[in-house]
């Protein structure tokens, strides 16, 4: 099964979007004649693996390399760099060039920036005195479809850059990505945004529409009805909680990268010592599509049932006479056998982690913090984690959860924990603490926390959650309904207006606007249910809501959105856009001070 997701069932024509990106890349490579060495920044390479197969690239006379500090080893005289516009990468490239010059190698250099050129990067090339040797271009890859209903803008550091460094360049790119979608699918008439960065994105998007308008006349009805922008800043509680859906757990323990997970082949029952293998995880795998969004507890049951029924069929098959059509049915079932084994193996591997007492204790603690029931127990738990020198990221995750739900810690506790952190993990983490403080994730308490009010008003904690037959999104965290998704739920159902009071309690401003030719149409005021003719696209498909997470989204949240979308009485299909798929770990990692 390919890692490139099959997009045939997508509610939007994402395939054409991906094909455009393929064509753009091929054109760049074709235009540079002859043999060439393509040097890709590794992370970008990962994103590209969702766009085009590397074997295809080789047809254009390409040697493929990953960008690193090491000089490029190749016989090609043309070197093509494909890199994101990151300043630190420019130093690598300049040092490669200097290295070639010192060895007397004459080469032609091309840099293609993804998705756009940055003057600052070119400035560095100029200062390194290599700019004049470069042919510079852009590869405008703004959107990468991860799956039928998930788009990524591939901006790993967007959240940290925005919150800590005040670098809003990524917001421009998000707006550009949405604007690109609009040029394919029509101007989105309704826009709701919550959070500082989201409102900025909305502003930039509106400005882009006046600067380079998408003509709305070509399309009778825009395919996307509503755009909801949610800032990660609004809800930092959810990503810090351990995800309990199948896909979420795989990501927590094994890391899903670009739609696949890398495992020891022994996990998958292949007897090859120490060899790693990649398992693609997307909806082309029918079984995965069925179970990815379920609570892990239920997944184990479902898999067990399936295995049992298959075994039963097999026994029947071998003991009794079967008609041809029955045989056919059986063979059809057999086809799903590889998928079954794959997920049984994977689930078994996961349960090794989930059955550990430490994991259960952590879940317990997360729930205690979210319920805000016992400050002291939580504080002592964290204190002990630090003193035992548990992995720093684990500590930061729960510390952020604790600080955010309490609107910071009293000064005495704040200083105490900071000191314990520095003593246990080293003084270089002063920068980490500084980053967290700037982002408001671990700070001194300045006002009373309103978490309890928010929790109650939005019913974030749901008692007696039936994970097998859920009736609320809270099933994804076994009892906690993700705040971000509750907001989306309300935004879709009734807009921001009825919940202004609650929104004011959450960080950042919010806006609600009409756009395009609907801007001045008062009858189009509220987003009503599907009975309203305008909401349906001509061919009977449901119209779409695009939910964009500025700063990343977790798999568990995606699952919750899919759950919403599948509910009876839901008038819309939901499509998710995000700067990147994140989890508590990857988010917390970006704040580590020593890395940058």
């Amino acid at each position, binding site marked *: 099964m390919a890692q490139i997701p099959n997009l045939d069932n997508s509610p939007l024509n994402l395939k054409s979007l991906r094909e455009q990106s393929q064509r753009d890349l091929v054109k760049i490579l074709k235009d540079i*004649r*002859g043999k060439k060495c393509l040097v890709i920044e590794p992370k970008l390479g990962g994103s590209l693996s969702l766009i085009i197969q590397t074997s295809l690239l080789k047809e254009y006379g390409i040697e493929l390399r990953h960008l690193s500090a090491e000089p490029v080893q190749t016989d090609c005289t043309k070197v093509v760099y494909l890199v994101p516009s990151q*300043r*630190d990468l420019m130093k690598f490239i300049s040092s490669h060039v200097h290295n070639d010059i010192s060895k007397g190698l004459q080469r*032609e250099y091309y840099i293609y920036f993804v998705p756009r050129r940055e*003057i*600052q990067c070119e*400035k*560095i090339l100029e*200062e390194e005195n290599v700019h004049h040797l470069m*042919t510079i271009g852009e590869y405008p890859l703004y959107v990468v479809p991860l799956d039928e209903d998930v788009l990524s803008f591939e901006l790993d550091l967007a959240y940290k*850059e925005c919150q800590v*460094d*005040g*670098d*809003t*360049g990524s917001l*421009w790119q998000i707006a550009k990505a949405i604007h690109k979608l609009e040029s394919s699918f029509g101007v989105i008439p309704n826009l709701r945004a919550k959070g500082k960065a989201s409102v900025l994105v909305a*502003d*930039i998007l509106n*400005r*882009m529409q*006046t*600067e*380079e308008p998408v003509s709305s006349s070509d399309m009778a009805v825009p395919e996307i009805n509503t755009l909801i922008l949610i800032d990660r800043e609004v809800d930092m509680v959810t990503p810090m909680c351990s995800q309990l859906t199948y896909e979420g757990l795989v990501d927590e323990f094994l890391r899903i990268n670009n739609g696949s997970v890398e495992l020891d082949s022994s996990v998958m029952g292949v007897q090859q010592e120490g060899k790693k293998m990649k398992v693609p995880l997307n909806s082309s795998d029918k079984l995965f599509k069925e179970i990815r969004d379920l609570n892990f507890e239920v997944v184990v049951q479902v898999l067990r049932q399936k295995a049992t029924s298959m075994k039963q069929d097999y026994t029947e098959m071998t003991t009794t006479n079967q008609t041809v059509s029955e045989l056919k049915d059986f063979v059809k079932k057999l086809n799903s056998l590889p998928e079954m084994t794959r997920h049984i193996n994977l689930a078994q591997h996961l349960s090794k982690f989930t*059955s550990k*007492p430490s994991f*259960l204790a952590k879940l317990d603690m997360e729930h205690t913090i979210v319920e805000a029931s016992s400050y002291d127990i939580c504080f002592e738990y964290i*204190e*002990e984690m630090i*003193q*035992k*020198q548990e992995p720093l990221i684990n500590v930061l995750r729960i510390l952020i959860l604790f600080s955010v739900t309490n609107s910071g810690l009293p000064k005495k506790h704040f*200083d105490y924990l*900071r*000191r*314990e952190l*520095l*003593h*246990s*993990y*080293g*003084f*270089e983490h*002063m*920068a980490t603490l*500084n980053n967290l403080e700037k982002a408001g994730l671990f700070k001194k308490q300045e006002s009373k926390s309103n978490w309890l009010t928010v929790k109650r008003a939005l019913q974030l904690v749901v008692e007696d959650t039936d994970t097998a037959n859920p009736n609320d999104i809270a099933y994804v965290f076994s009892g906690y309904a993700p705040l971000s998704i509750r907001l989306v739920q309300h935004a879709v159902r009734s807009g921001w207006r009825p919940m202004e009071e609650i929104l004011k309690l959450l960080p950042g401003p919010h806006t609600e606007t009409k756009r395009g030719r609907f801007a001045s149409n008062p009858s189009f005021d509220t987003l009503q249910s599907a009975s309203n003719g305008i909401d349906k696209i001509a061919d009977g498909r449901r119209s779409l809501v695009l939910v964009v997470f500025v700063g990343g989204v977790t798999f568990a949240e995606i699952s919750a959105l899919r759950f919403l979308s599948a509910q009876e009485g839901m008038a819309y299909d939901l499509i998710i856009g995000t700067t990147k798929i994140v989890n508590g770990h990857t988010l917390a990692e970006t704040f580590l001070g*020593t890395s940058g």
Partner: protein
Amino acid sequence: MANVSVAAEWQLLYNRYYRKPELYPMRWKHMDLSRNKVACAPFGGPIAVIRDDSKIVQLYSESALRKLRIFTSSGALISETVWKHPGGRLIGMSWTEDQTLICIVQDGTVYRYNVHAELIEPNVSLGKECFEQNVVECMFWGNGVVCLTEGGLLFGIPDFKVMSPCQLAETGAEDLPNCMAVIEPKYTVSGNVEVLVGVGDGILIVDEDGVQRVEGEAVQGPVQKMVVSWDGKYLAIFTHDGRILVTDINFKGVLLEYNCESALPPEQLAWCGLDSVLLYWDDTPLLMVGPRGDPVHYFHDEPLVLIPECDGVRILSNTSMESLQRVPDSTVSIFKIGSTSPAALLYDALDHFDRRSAKADENLRLIRSSLPEAVEACIDAAGHEFDVSRQRTLLRAASYGQAFCSNFQRDRIQEMCKTLRVLNAVRDPEIGIPLSINQYKLLTPSVLIARLINAHRHLLALRISEYLGMNQEVVIMHWACSKITASLAIPDATLLEILLDKLRLCRGISYAAVAAHADKNGRRKLAAMLVEHEPRSSKQKRPPLEFFGMIQARPLPRDLFISYARCYKHEFLKDFFLSTGQLQEVAYLLWKESWELGKNPMATKGSPLHGPRIKLIEKAQHLFSETKEHTFESKAAEEHAKLLRIQHELEVSTKQAIFVDSSISDTIRTCIVLGNHRAAMKVKTEFKVSEKRWYWLKVFALATIRDWDALEKFSKEKRPPIGYRPFVEACVDADEKGEALKYIPKLADPRERAEAYARIGMAKEAADAASQAKDGELLGRLKLTFAQNAAASSLFDTLRDRLSFQGVS
């Protein structure tokens, strides 16, 4: 009929008609092409003229200094400049695709001019060998050149956009070639330029990597002249015995052969489209040869310059510019004498209609069924027409016919009108770009607009891009920049008004680019004023970052500057923070520097390097203490400096470089692991490490070295402040059940006890403890842990039942 006169001007070559309408009478005066070197750009581009210094000519009341003059295709002077370059004779001169004039002189220097006769620097040299050997011939194509030296070496510039010269393989031939032709890189398999060299008795194909001799029936004996067709697929060859041959570029088969009965090769040999070849000797009529039939002769009494185009040839003489092209099929079908094609009848019908004759209707009835194709032919023929009134008549015929067609694509006429309006506008002798419709389509409107703005025809360019619904930004932007360059005398404020007036025409235009241009022209103030007006979000954040004070007041550029400087210019950033009073930021930077100093692989640990590092940290501490809000940071820095000192001492005393840059906790652990309990204690007291942390650290450290006796002794030192849990955990983690059992019973909380027993697999004890705790949830959890063990599992069930029963009662 009026139509007769049209076809009367045509010449028949086998079964194809050719026509040679005059495009312009030339506007220049007293031009004698034979005295000059002339370079004409295709696609109706400009003409460069300079006195030929390889010929002896008489000077008439003119300066001895040569002038390079640039004209439009209609002969209007665009610009001129005096030629006084060193380097010997001018050997080759040609226009590139983007209308840069390339001039190559004997010593291999390449001079470049734009259409305004302004030298584009730097000048490029073809290399040392060229300098020593002299260039004798240049072969150009749209985007490159190959030069031949006296020594028979070939050098080339494969891409004028890059301007890096290369040498081609040596032919090894003793004599200089008779003739040469180039196949441009885009038509070769290798993607590199290939040169066809007629030398000795045959033809060689030369590229960068090698030389290859050509085999084929077309090559029998020496070749005198060659030219490649514009699509790179065919080759015309003039042989030693006076024949003209056309062959496939791979020399497979002869497609045309004609004996010209001339021992001398023609001065010019050119393809006319892809259908015929033109041969020019200055003393005989211009000869046009096609694949079959008799050739056509065109008489001339002036020297000519042939300018090959994709669909014909333009013929330049001292007094006129003509276009020789094959008559398009649609035009033939309408105007051919005696034509009864539907299109001809439709054209005729319009004539009758205009004269109010009933025959109009009769004609229409005749062609009813084929009306759409007749309309299409009229539209197409109109497109190929240079004569405006004939364009109009043909389009009227089309629209007349269209009225009776039910299913014709109605916007075809509209589209053609649009195209023709554009073409007629640029063909105007004032502009002088005689594009045919085919050339226009190949060139594309955006390139045409780019050429117009390069020629400073901004108004026309603007009108055309507006008319075609294209982005006007390019035009306005270019205008604004040209305006700034040309307006040195206009004061900033006035110029700003003039610029804004036009910039406002185009929404979304980037003022920053214009500002950058102003800045480059030394008008910094104007640049700053322009940036203030920038409406575009993406560009606004890049004003010239000149003054800290200025950007401090503007959050967006400030943050951007900081993040840029953070990555690249530490010193600069420090100055900035100091100047704006953000002392804590400077402190963080210093701290970071000290950290990076430590990471420096050149600095071995334990060396006196800790000195400068500590100094940096102490400086940071000092800066932190300047502000009230940063007491914590200041203390932390103080502790860090102290830690580094202690770690350094430890490394010296233990002679092990394992301490520096580990944390306080790690340092304590390392000390204990090394058995140096006194040092561990010293670190503990020095940094006031809490008893709680101390217990965890020491217990874990002792477990690491599996010193269970020491652990037990430690547990008995005094009652541990956090109970015996650390001891249990350490033993369980180390898989030492026996050791763990020493401490589990001492755990105060029965729940903890239950879990600890469970972890080492003692179900019964776990169950007992749990039931003591009266915790049903815990029992359930423990049951899960023991799920595999049936006996244990039932044990938990019984207990839980009992518990819930208790709960009810």
